[in-house]
């Protein structure tokens, strides 16, 4: 009896499609890379510093929280690094080191770990970090001020701030191709439109993000901006301007699509995405903030559990 071979006894199913969390995290980081590299080329060493510090400090915060809460070490799944990268992409290149550290602390610890780690966070962790920084240290997010010392050979004005403060006439000089090719200033990883769109398409094709959310988010922005533009084009900028400036594209492909804080059922995904897009333009056009993506997505995160109750009836229900 005892010299028998021992076999692995486990439960069905005995096959797996070999997907894993780390594969997902690293692919999303890979998709973000074109936009990040473009930012690094534009803003140089300070931007590299911000990105590196952000990623490394996120991982360290996660590791410390794992240690303090005596839970298995979860930095291997790449999610902390992903949060750090997305967070850095939303910062201006000249952010001081303490701002980055505080932001990643808020993102990883308050945004994610206190809810029980990956999968438990009700909000997108990177957005929680950015939102708290934006409210607490507003001046650092004035991109015109933050990037004062740069001259990259195109209009060195943050398009959304120009729109807010000086009206539509101030942004006439931005052409769509300029905005797509990244000839605008802004946060490190948000200015290179084509790069972000390419990354987003990659993620959709590979199935790492849910296309319903991205597309409905973009549609929400376009349609709402178009309605405003049609109503009064002297006061409100056109839909493509809103689509290609600020955090819109990164919001659609990388922020709103965060797994844990977004719905998974078909109809809720559309409502969630479209709601985020609509809120973005509403905040930009009639709200107090320059950009609306951060708060729009967080608002929709709040609505997510409720939205996800709209789901198909399971087999055998309703008798």
């Amino acid at each position, binding site marked *: 009896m005892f010299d028998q*071979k021992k076999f692995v006894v*486990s439960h069905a199913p005995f096959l797996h*499609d070999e997907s894993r969390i780390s594969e997902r995290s690293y692919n999303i980081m890979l998709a973000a890379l074109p936009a990040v590299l473009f930012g690094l080329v534009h803003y140089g060493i300070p931007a590299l510093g911000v990105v590196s510090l952000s990623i490394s400090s996120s991982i360290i915060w996660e590791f410390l929280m794992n240690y303090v809460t005596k839970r298995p070490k979860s930095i291997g799944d790449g999610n902390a690094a992903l949060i750090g990268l997305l967070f850095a992409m939303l910062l201006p290149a000249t952010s001081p080191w303490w701002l980055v550290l505080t932001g990643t602390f808020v993102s990883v610890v308050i945004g994610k770990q206190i809810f029980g780690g990956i999968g438990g966070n009700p909000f997108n962790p990177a957005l929680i970090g950015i939102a708290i920084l934006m409210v607490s240290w507003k001046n650092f997010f004035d991109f015109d001020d933050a990037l004062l010392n740069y001259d990259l050979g195109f209009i060195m004005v943050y398009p959304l701030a120009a729109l807010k403060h000086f009206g539509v006439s101030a942004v006439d000089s931005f052409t769509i191709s300029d905005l797509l090719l990244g000839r605008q200033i802004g946060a490190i990883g948000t200015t290179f439109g084509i790069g972000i769109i390419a990354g987003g398409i990659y993620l959709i094709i*590979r199935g790492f993000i849910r296309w319903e959310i991205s597309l409905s988010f973009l549609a929400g922005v376009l349609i709402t901006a178009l309605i405003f533009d049609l109503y009064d084009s002297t006061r409100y900028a056109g839909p493509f301007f809103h689509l290609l400036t600020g955090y819109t594209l990164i919001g659609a492909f990388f922020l709103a699509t965060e797994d844990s804080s977004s719905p*998974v059922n078909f109809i809720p995904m559309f409502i969630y995405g479209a709601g985020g897009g609509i809120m973005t333009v509403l905040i930009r056009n009639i709200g107090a903030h320059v950009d609306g993506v951060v708060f729009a997505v967080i608002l929709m995160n709040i609505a997510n559990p409720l939205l996800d109750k709209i789901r198909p009836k*399971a087999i055998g*229900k309703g008798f």
Partner: protein
Amino acid sequence: MLKRSFIRLTKPRFKNELLPDTQTEPQKISTPKKVTLLLDNSFDQKEVFLLKEGDKVKTGRKLFLSKDSDTYVISTITGTVTSISPYTGDFGDTYTAISIVAGEEEEIDDEFEKYCKEPNLDVAKKFLACVPGNPPINLFSDPDKRINTIVICGVDSDLLITTRQYAVKSDIEAIKSGIHFLKKITGIDNIIMAAHRNQIQECGDTDIEIKEVNSDYPSTHPHLIMKDILGQSVPEGRSCEDVGVCFFSAEAIAAIGNAFNNGKIPVTKNLTLIKKDGSKMMVSTRIGTPISEIFDAFEVTLNEKDRIIAGGPMTGSAVFSEDYPIQPDTDAIIVQDKDSVKKVLDNPCINCGECIRICPAKVPINMLIRFLQAGQYGTAAEQYDLFSCIECGLCSFVCISRIPIFQYIRLAKYELRSD
């Protein structure tokens, strides 16, 4: 074996294995030296059994432990009973294991032959409940279930297996007479055959209705055959039998047909053997053969930490010993090398939605699993459709966190039902 595809715009689809046109005869194994038969009856030490160690039995002999019990097994070899012992299966199911060591010459028991001239439900119940394929004969006399439709599955219920399809291809005459006898003994005329498109021609001249089943897994699952083909849905937590439909495998029907035609109870079972390298073969062996004999015959070497699976890759069960006997419904034996055994993890759900997209029963698995992991089975059943699950295993298959979702669901159902 089946990996996540690089491009994944739509939900992944898994095809049931179709029987190749070139399928050869199953390879027969010589009569085993020893068989173990599992009697569905818990073992009571104090009880005095009718059957004793040392009793001589013939092939086809009906073995039972006491006169009042309905459960029995059919001896599949001629020999001597060497042990009667308790056996515990999955989820604490208890059986009595009867081991028989083969004698010199095979003799066929003739008790069934006397009765088989006049086929009726009672005879079928008394002799044919454990023929290959495990026909659910006892259902017809169960007063709680009013069976009005019989579905014959010519399709296999799990991935990679072709056992039932082979029964349709090789034994269609026996299936036809099996259908004839089944109609006669049950009085049910509404018999339907479920078959894949490529099988329809093979079963064309049976006089029953043939319905095409999609080859996407899990379309061959009884609940989905009910929904897609019969247009009936089964209320959550109930079985197909509760609404009057029962399922017979093609192999079981063929066995019934053969039994009444030949006057002998079939004791040989076909099964799909899937080796470590993924190669498949059909094997024909006596019910009760320890799987080690199959491995010896086909040169499968086993190492420490390999995995042996009785049944299909999605719904089968792993066995802990090489002595595990082939059951009447063991349609496949799969051997996995220790390097291809994928471990499950205790990651939390990351809410990626893969399971939601693939679930054929539309169960909100992302929410359900959170409650199951927290042990809140009651809430899971009330609010998150636990009992709608049809147990196909796809959610665990695609889970990025590698949570054993399927096992959590089965455990929760078991716990709630045993309360």
